[in-house]
Each structure stands twice: as C-alpha cells, then as structure tokens.
C-alpha cells in the first residue's frame, strides 16, 4: 500500500513549487496558476487524508476549494483584463504606482 507520507511529501513539493512560482514569475497568469498549484497541493492532502481517515470531509472541502478557485479566477481575470486595458501590461512588476 502507498504510505500516506508519500502523498503528503508530494503535496509539500508541489506547494513549494507553487510558492516559488509566485515569487519568481512576472507574468500574472503564471502567478495565478502557481497559486492554483498551491491550492492543488492542499487538495491532494485533503483527498489523501480523507482516504486514509475514512472520512468524506476532505473531499467536501476540496469541492468548495475548487468552487472558490473558480470564482476567484473569474474575478482575477476580470481585473487582469481591466489592467491590460488601462495599462497594456500583464507583468506584475509594472504595477507599482503605489509604494513607500
């Protein structure tokens, strides 16, 4: 049988990749997708745990996570469109009018 820790470690690795992605890439889409990576890492955890704990809560949580992710993506993309419209750029490091 597959040890639970394998799943957890996999998710940890995935989470980390997501985090690093958020830090490093300029392109806002890739930023968002990196965040999705983090969410997916969490999802893997939930599913794995719910499997090993014999409890459905994890799966339920994942459903909600995905729902929220969808809503968030919609809003995010809307804002990106605004930005692209007003600034003609999708590179986050160009959005720094406000600092200090």
């Amino acid at each position, binding site marked *: 049988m597959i040890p639970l820790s394998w799943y957890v470690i996999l998710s940890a690795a995935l989470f980390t990749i997501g*985090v690093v992605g*958020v*830090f*490093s890439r*300029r392109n806002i889409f890739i*930023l968002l997708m990196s965040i999705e990576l983090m969410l997916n890492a969490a999802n893997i955890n939930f599913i794995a745990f719910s499997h090993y704990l014999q409890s459905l809560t994890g799966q339920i949580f994942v459903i909600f996570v995905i729902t929220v992710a969808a809503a968030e993506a919609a809003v995010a993309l809307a804002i990106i469109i605004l930005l692209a419209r007003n600034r003609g750029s999708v590179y*986050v*490091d160009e*959005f*720094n*009018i*406000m*600092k*200090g």
Partner: protein
Amino acid sequence: MLTYALIPILPFAGFLIAGLFGKYLKERAAYAAIAGVVGAFLLSFSTFLDVLDGTIINENLYSWISIGTLSVNVGFQIDQLTAVMLLVVTTLSSLIHIYSVGYMHGDKGYARFFSYLALFTFFMLVLVMANNFLLMFVGWEGVGLCSYLLIGFWYEKKSASDAGVKAFVVNRVGDFGFVLGMLLIFSTFGTLDFAGVFAALSGPAAKQSIALLGGNISVVTLIALLLFLGATGKSAQLPLYVWLPDAMEGPTPVSALIHAATMVTAGVFMVSRCAPIFSLSETAMTTVAVVGGLTAVFAATIGLVQNDIKRVIAYSTISQLGYMFLGLGVGAFSAGIFHLTTHAFFKGLLFLASGSVIHALSGEQDMRKMGALKSKISITHVVFIIGSLALAGIFPFAGFFSKDEILWSAYSSPGMGRVLWLLGVAGAFMTAFYSFRLIYLTFYGESRIDHEVEHHVHESPKVMTVPLMILAFFSLTIGWIGMPGAILPNVNLFGNFLAPIFPHAEHAAAESHGIERWLMLFSVLVALSGIRMAYSLYVKNTSLPDRIADRYKGAYNLLLSKYKIDEIYNYLFVDGLVHKVATFLYKVGDVKIVDGAVNGIARLIGTTSERGRRIQTGYVQQYAFTMGLGLVVLVGLYYVLK
C-alpha cells in the same frame, strides 16, 4: 511692647508713604520719611533710657515660621548693645535724611530716594533689634537690598548699576556663609534664638566637632567662621571688601549713612552680638583679629594714593572697620563697638562734608581738580578738619579714644597681640597721612578747579550745613563717654554700660596704666608725623609726590590700581567661573549633549522610517516574498521552541 515694635515700623510707614505716593507728594515725600525716622530716633532714646539700668527686653511679636522643631518668631531683643546701635542708627539716619533734603534737591528720583532711605533705616533697625538669627538675617539682607538700590540710584549710569549688582552679589557670597552658619547652629543647638543658642553654648552640644576636608573642626569654631564670612561680606573686609569702593557711585548721603556709618558696621555688630560664640573659639577670634588688622593696613595703603575724594574716604572706612574687627578679635568687644560709634559720627561727617565739597564743585570728585577751597566753603572746611582729626586719632577728638582702646587691648592681649598692635600703629600713621593729604589737596594749595566750575562755587545751604555742625560737635565730644582708665579712672561710661552683655576679655589692668599712657602718646605722635608728612608733601613742595611716584613707579601703580584685585576677581570669578563656564555648559552641555541626545533619538527614528519606506517597493512579488520569509522564519522557530 508696641513702642519697641514702632521703632522699625515708623520708618517703614515713611517708606510706604514716600514710595507709594511719591508721585503725588513730589518733594514733600521727604517729610514723611524724615518724620518716620525722627520718630524712631525719639523712641530709641526712650528705649535707651529703659535699658540704662541694665535690663534686657526680649519679646516676641508673632510666630513666623514653625515646622516641627523649627520655630522662629518675629521678636525683639533689646539690650545695651542694641540700644547703642539704635541710637547710632537713628541719629545718623535722621541727620542724613535732613541733609539729603538739600543735597538731593531737584533730583527726579527725589521721592524714590527718601523711600529707599527710610526702607534702609527700617531694615537696619530690624537687624539690630532681632532676637534670633533668622530675623537678623532679614534685616541683614534687607539693608543689602537697599544699598543695592541706592548705589544704583542713578541707574542710567551703567557704572552705578554695575556697582549695585556687584555689592549685592559680593554680599551674597558672605551671606552664603551666614546661611550655612545658621543651618549649622540649628542642627547643633536646635534653635535660632540668640538667648537659646547662647544658653546652649555651655551644654554638651557645643563640645562636638565635625569632620571637614579630612580635618576635624569644633562646631563652635566652624559656626563662628561661617558667620564671620558673612561679616566680611557686609563689613567689606578682606577678601570681600571689593564692593565698597565702587559703592561710592551712589549719592553721597548714601555713602555716609550706609557705606560708612551704619550698614557696613552690621558685620561688627553681628560679631559682637555673637560674642559668646566667638569667645569660645580661639581660632575664630584670631582669624577675626588678623583679618581686621590686615584689612586695616591693606586698605590704608590703597587710600594713600587715590585721587577720588570719596574713594579715599571709602578706603579709610574699610581700614577703620578693620580696626573694629581687630578690637573684637582681641576680645575688646566694647572697644570695637565704641569705635563703631565714634566712627559712625566722624565718618558720617567726613562723607557729608565731602558731599558738600562735591556739591559746591557741582559734581567734581577728583581732588586733582580742587584746591584752595578753605576760604570759599569755610564751614565745610572747618568740619572737615574736625572729622579728619577725629579720624587720625588726635587727642581729644573722638577717634583717639576708641582707636587707642583697641590698640591697647591688642597690645595687651596674649599671643600675636604685639604684631597686631604694630599693624594698628602703621595703619594709624597712614590714616593720618592720607586724611590730611585729602585736606591739603582739597582746601589748600593753589586752585586747580576748571574755570566755568570756579564761578559758582558756593557754600551749601543751611539744611546741609546744620547737620554737618551737629556731627562735628559729636565727632569732637562723643569719644569722651569712653574715657580710658589711663586718663580718668572709672569714668568709662560706655564700657560700663556695655559691660553686662560682653564676656570680660578686657586685659587692661590698673597697674599697667603706665605703659598705656606711653603707647597713647606714641600713637598720637605717629599720627602727627603722618600729618606733618602730608603737609610737607602736598603744601611745602608739591612736586615731590610726583617724583616719588616716578621713583617707585611699580609700587605706586600697584597701589593706584588697588593691587589689581578687582581685575583678578573679575577674571577668575565673574568671567571665568560664571560666564565662560555658563556659556560652555549651555552651548555644549545642554544644547549638544542633553538636548542633542533627545533630538538624536527622534532623528534616528525618523531616518529609520525613511529607510523603511524603501523596503516597501510596490512590487507585489516582493510582498509575497516577505510573507514567505516570515513563514520560513516562524516555521524555523519550531527548532527553537521545542
């Protein structure tokens, strides 16, 4: 009781009236002051009669300060000493008030002048009547204040106001000693009343001694020395005499009343008031005697060469005060007080007379611009000579009796008595010399007066000359009340009168009258020779002084510049110890260090903030990164916390 209280109150009333309503009373203000002072004089006389039979009045008016064990009353102790002082003060004060009516006529500060003068009288009376140290200190500082105000009376003159401040501050240095003395007295004896303290002197408290600068000093001595420091300030003794010559900036009546007759003698009075304390401490007594003797000579030497008529008299005053302390120092308290009394009269006379001269010469004070005045202002001339003879100590003038009593007690006192005596004699010689130098320069020889001044030289009005004559009379006669046993046995009224309150330190034994007579003769001769020398120098061949001056240039200039003491004090204390240090402390200490630290902290925080703004770059990823960093650090804490 009330009658005694009235003695100071009357002049105070005079002060209030003249001070508050001076604006409306104009010159009539003088009458209020005079009335007050004369009233005080009459009351003092009746008081004098009350205590003539040796009774001592000691009454409290009301409780002034009372905290725990500290309980000070406003109260009067009137004994023979006080009575003498009362008479001296009120007499002189009255006469000088009257004299001033003429002298100050037409001055725009007329009312102010009289109010100050009356206020001075008030404080002086408080000083002499007080029955405890603290109240005495009130009078003590009060007269200081008045002298400050009166020296600076013509405040537009910078020199005048400077002199005023100088007088007050130098006196404060003395008072520093006085205050500490009082603190030590209270902490030792638990009271500040004269009676209480003197009573306790015989007790154990007086025996103790305290550590000071490694050494060990008896409390009584320390008290005495501290009080004496106060006395040197007030009575212009070494090293605090410097203010008195400058005090001549004030109007001449002020010099007469305050800086010759009364205030400056307060030190002498205080020391004799504390005779019981002083006489317990050999050290203190010697100190007093030595300081007195030295001052007597020191001031006289300066007096030899001064050209300002008032300054000459001022230095003679310092020197005469020296004699008084010399007397007190050798235990001849009554002699000291006696000299105080006589001196008050003849020195008052001299000052008023010089005032009359100055008045005649419309303000001229430099003797090099005088001469040949004897016919022009004859009354002044006569009284001036009487005063000078008294000062020089020529028989039978007042000065003779008092000075010789002091010299004799010095001579006959054990220890360094003879040395002190020699100092005294030397001083006597110089005194005779410079006082007649003054007379010759002023009244004899050929006139050196500026011409426009020459025209309106005139004798002073009656209101001024009458007091002069009265004083002259006293200068001649007052000495006789202290007739030494060596001349007429057992008629020393003065001595006997004061006998009950002073410890009997008189060494004059009957069988030694022989020596005493010889000494008297000797000192008179010395004085006469001094006068003769002055005559030969300033009347016979007037070129001689300059030649001597050239010959001993160094010495002459040193004397002329008063040993440069003022300059040294200025450099050391006024500029150095005060202004330079203050400026440095402020510019560096306060602004840079103390305040600098505060502002520095503020600035530090400010710059931190400015720097911090750079961290907030506006890059969203950097924000996320910071979060991540925080996450990592916190997670890392796991290894710390467990």
